[in-house]
């Protein structure tokens, strides 16, 4: 299956909802009028684009209509897709690999966003690319989180560095870095405990984990991924903002996208924050991960 089809499949739910609502808004053979604009606005709000981004995109469509670039309602979708895709520069979706030594990827997020599963998926993804992967189990807080990651590490056949529950996550990160260097790993994926972005002391703990990694391996962490639950609404923007204050977030892993009828948040995040989505999670098996490609994504979202 090609990438486009897999995305299309994974997004079938999103696509059905979004494109159905856009289709009901944008009818074939009808000229654009003020009513079109209003209905388009409602459809975008419902799809979690968020008020600010919706406003911006609606303005784009309105000015295109006023300037005569688009006349019929059926032209609106293509026009929008073109404008949305233009919001993602090519450069910022790459994974930054270390020039030598292990590439360290720190994975963070709020409780229940899907960090551990996402770490497993990334582990599997990099292993398939022929890379030697080690997992660091730094979620020492939640009951059985270490066990959960251990089970994943067996399933995807990678090594794991872990301590007992309740251990200092900074210490685990330290050991994981040492192990990754000693065993000449290509990629070290560090799973961290879920923390609400409103809990200041927990956010500071996350900052500490990053500092431990920085000290241990120069240039690390090469990527700090924030795992966001795709079903989350406008709060995603707050989360990304707060996490960025404590760790240098370089990208977003958008999890559970297969369950969301509201792909709009992807656009909202790109518009509101300067953090690119780098991966999307589309299911429960380790295979269900894709590097994010805005063109394919937006087209799949609106495809019939």
């Amino acid at each position: 299956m090609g990438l486009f089809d897999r995305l299309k499949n994974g997004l079938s739910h999103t696509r059905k909802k979004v494109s159905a609502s856009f289709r009901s808004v944008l009818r074939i053979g009808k000229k654009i009028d003020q009513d079109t604009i209003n209905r388009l606005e409602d459809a975008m709000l419902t799809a979690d684009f968020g008020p600010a981004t919706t406003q911006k995109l609606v303005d784009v469509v309105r000015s295109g209509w006023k300037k005569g670039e688009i006349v019929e309602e059926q032209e609106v979708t293509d026009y929008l897709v073109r404008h949305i895709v233009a919001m993602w520069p090519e450069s910022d979706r790459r994974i930054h690999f270390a020039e030598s030594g292990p590439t360290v990827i720190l994975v963070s997020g709020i409780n229940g966003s899907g960090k551990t599963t996402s770490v497993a998926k990334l582990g599997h993804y990099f292993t398939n690319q022929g890379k030697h992967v080690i997992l660091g189990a730094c979620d020492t807080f939640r009951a059985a989180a270490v066990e959960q990651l251990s089970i994943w590490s067996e399933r995807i056949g990678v090594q794991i560095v872990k301590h007992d529950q309740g251990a200092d996550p900074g210490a685990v990160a330290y050991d994981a870095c040492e192990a990754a260097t000693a065993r000449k790993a290509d990629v070290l994926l560090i799973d961290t405990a879920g923390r609400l972005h409103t809990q200041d002391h927990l956010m500071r703990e996350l900052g500490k984990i990053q500092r431990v990694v920085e000290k241990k391996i120069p240039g690390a962490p090469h990527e700090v991924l924030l795992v966001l639950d795709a079903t989350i609404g406008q709060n995603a923007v707050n989360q990304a903002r707060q996490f960025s204050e404590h760790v240098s977030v370089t990208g977003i892993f958008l999890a559970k996208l297969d369950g969301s009828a509201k792909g709009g948040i992807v656009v909202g995040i790109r518009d509101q924050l300067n953090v690119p989505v780098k991966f999307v999670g589309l299911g429960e098996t380790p295979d269900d991960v894709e590097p994010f490609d805005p063109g394919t994504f937006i087209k799949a979202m609106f495809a019939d």
Partner: protein
Amino acid sequence: MFDALSERLNSVFRGLRGRGKITEENVSEVMREIRTALLEADVNLEVARAFCDEVQQKAIGAEVIKTLRPADMMVKIVHDELVRLMGPVDPKIPFISPGPTILLMAGLQGSGKTTTCGKMAKLLLARAKRPLMVAADLKRPAAIDQLEVIGQQVGTPVYTERDQQNAVKVCRNGIAQARKTDRDVVILDTAGRLAVDEEMMDEVARIATTTNPQQIYLVLDAMTGQDAVNTARVFNQRLELDGIILTKFDSDTRGGAALSVKHVTGKPIKFVGIGEKMEAIEEFYPDRIAGRILGMGDILTLVEQAQRQYDQEEAAKLEAKMASGKFALDDFLVQLRKMRQMGSMKDLIKKIPGMGDMMGDMDLDEGEIVRMEAAIQSMTPKEKANPKIVDASRRRRIARGAGCDPSDVSQLVKQFEPMRNMMKAMSGQSLPQRLKMGMQFSKAMAGGGLPRLKGSSTASRRSLSKKDRRKRRKR
């Protein structure tokens, strides 16, 4: 929680103040703003529309009431509509006898089902019930281990079947086990599932028909966006929910899910999860939440939280100490810790009527309290009973022990005396009265003050030992 919405609505109402009366024109202007405020808060579009129509109708009809100023009238109408939107709620669990009473927890992945099971067990234990938790999440790696660990934490047995593939069987056997071991409530922890996953939705529906639970709860993340209502709708179609448990309510959610689900599903929110601790669960009261959204405070919840922390006898002893002016620094320390157990200072203060607005951007540094604790703990019993004796040499010693500046210690000591006097004055007053006095006091102090509200020297930041930090992390 609700901060953004609260702020938006209050600014809308402020705009109304100073207007002579409610006219159709200024109402529809206000309604547009309210609608945007609701949408920004992730309130479902349908719900926002219905809500605004309702408020608009009532507002225009209400013109006849001349006694109230328009802004107050609007606040009242919006308040009443918010209450209607979220209620009515009866969070009581209908226990059956002979038991066991069965509670089923369902929801999406990562919504917080397993943690909520533990909180529910704790809540039931406090009500003299004997719960049993059943680990029916066979899907997620180590979910069974997680429930077992939580079971140990809250002191509740957990029924597990490690090699079983069939969640329905596990639930059935778990209930049989509860009968055998005389447990009167069974909490079923099911796997997280997407509302669109037919196979998994079938499974949970089968669990429901087989076990016939007294209450079926949907566990829902309070931060869920426009999708919340779809999820709730689909789960409700398949399961006939009895209520919703909203988790992560202590986040900065704008509250869209909280405001939308009742309208869409007809099923109310019954409980809210408000923290990572196992006690962090509360019954949901629409009128209190509406009050909080509109910045009117929530004194009732505050009183309840306080009551949970203090027993009568202790309170009486404290009262006597306060009245006699014998209140010492270590009594203060005990109070400080109790208060911390009630939640963050910011949340507490917001629940006091009239305080929410005053708080604004004020940033309470919780770490300051920890530093105060450290300083008090570094004092001798004599110093704690009579802080006046702390001189320069004692101050240096205490500062060294607590890892802070000597000036921090002198500030603490300096401010304790007026505090003690205030406590003496406060004894005999009602609780809200006291809270108000307390706030005025700390506001006055904030100028030169002990609970310094913002920033602190780097020296005092170091005051946390490694052990302390770990302790705080575990909470």
